[in-house]
């Protein structure tokens, strides 16, 4: 087990090196001049050159890459735009995104797992039909569209919730209000697939022998579903949630833009637009690392719910 975790973390190193090279190439392929974006349209050629020299943009590419890598790992890669350490810029923004993602995840789980279970039990019923349709509609609407509509209804028309922005951590009362709309609109992405997966894996498990045995033994229907079926259906559901982490990040990029949310997704997009090369570099590497680690955790959670899986 420990070996497994270590190996997974070791694999992270070549992956990150590859990613860093890859993103570096993309950054350098991107037309545009970080110095120009920083100084603005009125900048003179002399000022531009000065800035380029300051950020080492005048050096050969391979030296720029190694410099970037070196500084990144030393922890003093500085964002051109924020003039701060890239890592601290990202870490400062991370809670907003992680909390948003977690809130969306929780909403999705709270809604979709019961919905999926009921759909599975009452297969082909009206409830099943409706919840499946809603689930499918959920992933068929662009996430930014749901965001605007929610904002329009709940903030502008009803004036119940703040329209946009970040009001502090989710566990503060003030902050919580700000979380509701973006988290709901982001949770749509997850809800659909989780509901459908819960339904189909419960259905699959129900048909297996040990469930039949349990039923035949006279175990109550409720406990059949909850204890036996659900426990065994959990593995694919957890896998799916793990896979959705990428989806959350992607959705977050759009949701954060709609709700003027100070998260990592928007930071990364703005960094790309502003040609803040070190920050783009840092964001991508950081997000990738988070993704890999979250997936590692998901894999470990498997072992808890399914003792048959071991990683030795």
């Amino acid at each position: 087990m420990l070996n497994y975790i270590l190996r997974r973390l070791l694999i992270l190193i070549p992956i990150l090196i590859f990613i860093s090279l890859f993103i570096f190439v993309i950054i350098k392929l991107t037309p545009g001049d970080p110095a120009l974006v920083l100084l603005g349209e009125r900048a003179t050629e002399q000022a531009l050159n000065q800035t380029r020299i300051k950020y080492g943009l005048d050096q050969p590419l391979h030296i720029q890459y190694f410099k970037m890598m070196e500084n990144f790992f030393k922890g003093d890669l500085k964002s051109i735009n924020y003039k701060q350490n890239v890592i601290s810029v990202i870490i400062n923004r991370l809670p907003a995104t992680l909390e948003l993602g977690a809130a969306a995840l929780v909403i999705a789980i709270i809604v979709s797992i019961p919905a999926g279970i009921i759909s599975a039990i009452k297969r082909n019923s009206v409830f099943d039909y409706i919840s499946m349709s809603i689930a499918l509609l959920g992933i068929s609407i662009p996430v930014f569209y749901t965001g605007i509509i929610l904002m329009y209804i709940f903030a502008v028309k009803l004036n119940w919730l703040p329209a946009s922005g970040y009001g502090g951590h989710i566990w503060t009362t003030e902050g919580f209000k700000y979380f509701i709309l973006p988290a709901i609109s982001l949770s749509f992405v997850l809800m659909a697939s989780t509901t459908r997966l819960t339904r189909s894996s419960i259905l699959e498990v129900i048909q297996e022998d040990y469930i039949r045995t349990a039923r035949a033994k006279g175990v109550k229907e409720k406990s059949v579903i909850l204890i036996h079926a659900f426990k065994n259906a959990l593995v694919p559901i957890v896998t799916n949630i793990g896979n959705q982490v990428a989806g959350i990040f992607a959705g977050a990029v759009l949701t954060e833009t709609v709700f003027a949310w100070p998260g990592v997704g928007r930071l990364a997009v703005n960094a790309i637009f502003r040609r803040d090369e070190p920050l783009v570099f840092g964001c991508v590497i950081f997000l990738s690392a988070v993704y890999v680690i979250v997936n590692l955790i998901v894999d470990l959670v498997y072992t808890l719910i399914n003792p048959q899986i071991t990683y030795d």
Partner: protein
Amino acid sequence: MISKYLIVLLGFNLLTLIFSLSKATNNQDNLISYLIFALLTLALGFLINKVRKTNQTDSNIQTTSNLTWKKLKRNKNAVFGLIIIIILVYISILAPFIMPHDPLEMNWGKTIQKPSLEHWFGTDEFGRDIFSRAIYGVRIALGIGLLAVVLNTLLGTFLGLIAGYYGGRVDNLIMRAIEMWNSIPFILMAIALIAALGTGLLNLILVVSITGIMQFARVIRSSVLGLKKADYVLAAKVMGIPDRQIIIRHILPNCIAPIIVLATLRIGEMILTIAGLSFLGLGIQPPMPALGSMLSSGQQYISENLMMSIVPGTMILLIVFAFNLLGDGLRDALDSKLSN
């Protein structure tokens, strides 16, 4: 069984062909539509012929594809999705013939109008007809979606086949690359790539088509891993059939099922990704009518004319929804585990 539906479609095609013949040569766009439509009609005729033949010979024996079709037909959702897709495909091919207005024609005196007899869904901020733009938008969305999916499928399947079949170092290399690819949030990747390559239509197709490869390759690889241990693959090896041929003749045809399912589900995702990029201003560039850009500019007029956002929004929803329905149905039909 299938031929009954096909004959109805063929009849429809023939009638429309005759009807639209006069309009066919107006411009390049119409001509392309007309040619595709004529090809479609030919293909339908050919299909009817083939279906009839097979139905005559073995009526009692069920081939796999026949069985799949039957299961699919029993799935009401999938049939519903399929019908929507067929209608959308027809709409997009016939777009130049059925649009009431030129989707690009501006009218400064009639901006942001509510629905009327002349403009069924009203007009947008340039006085352009929303209905015509939506129809044309569906055409572009489907065109791009299909093209990107084909590219995506080819690349993903190729990588998956190679990784799964050769295993070892090749597999390791490809899977690591996929893992790496996978760990970069794809929308960021798309944004970075579009920023690097520029916002052309071709670039857009390229970028969205490479963003979904990993999922594809992974699934194909795992089914290849199973298939390559099948005795008929071993038999082919013993017979000295070259690897390339084994992959093409024995492995590929047997993982068509997951490929079809994945590809169907991908189309929806791609259209959503393109819409998302349009929202950030990186999608299809104006003046070409694109659903995503229509939607995101419609949002600016949400209180003036709801139609500006509802129409493209609904169209996106319809396309994605239909493909998801069909994809789900196909998965159920092709997956033996849930078949009964």
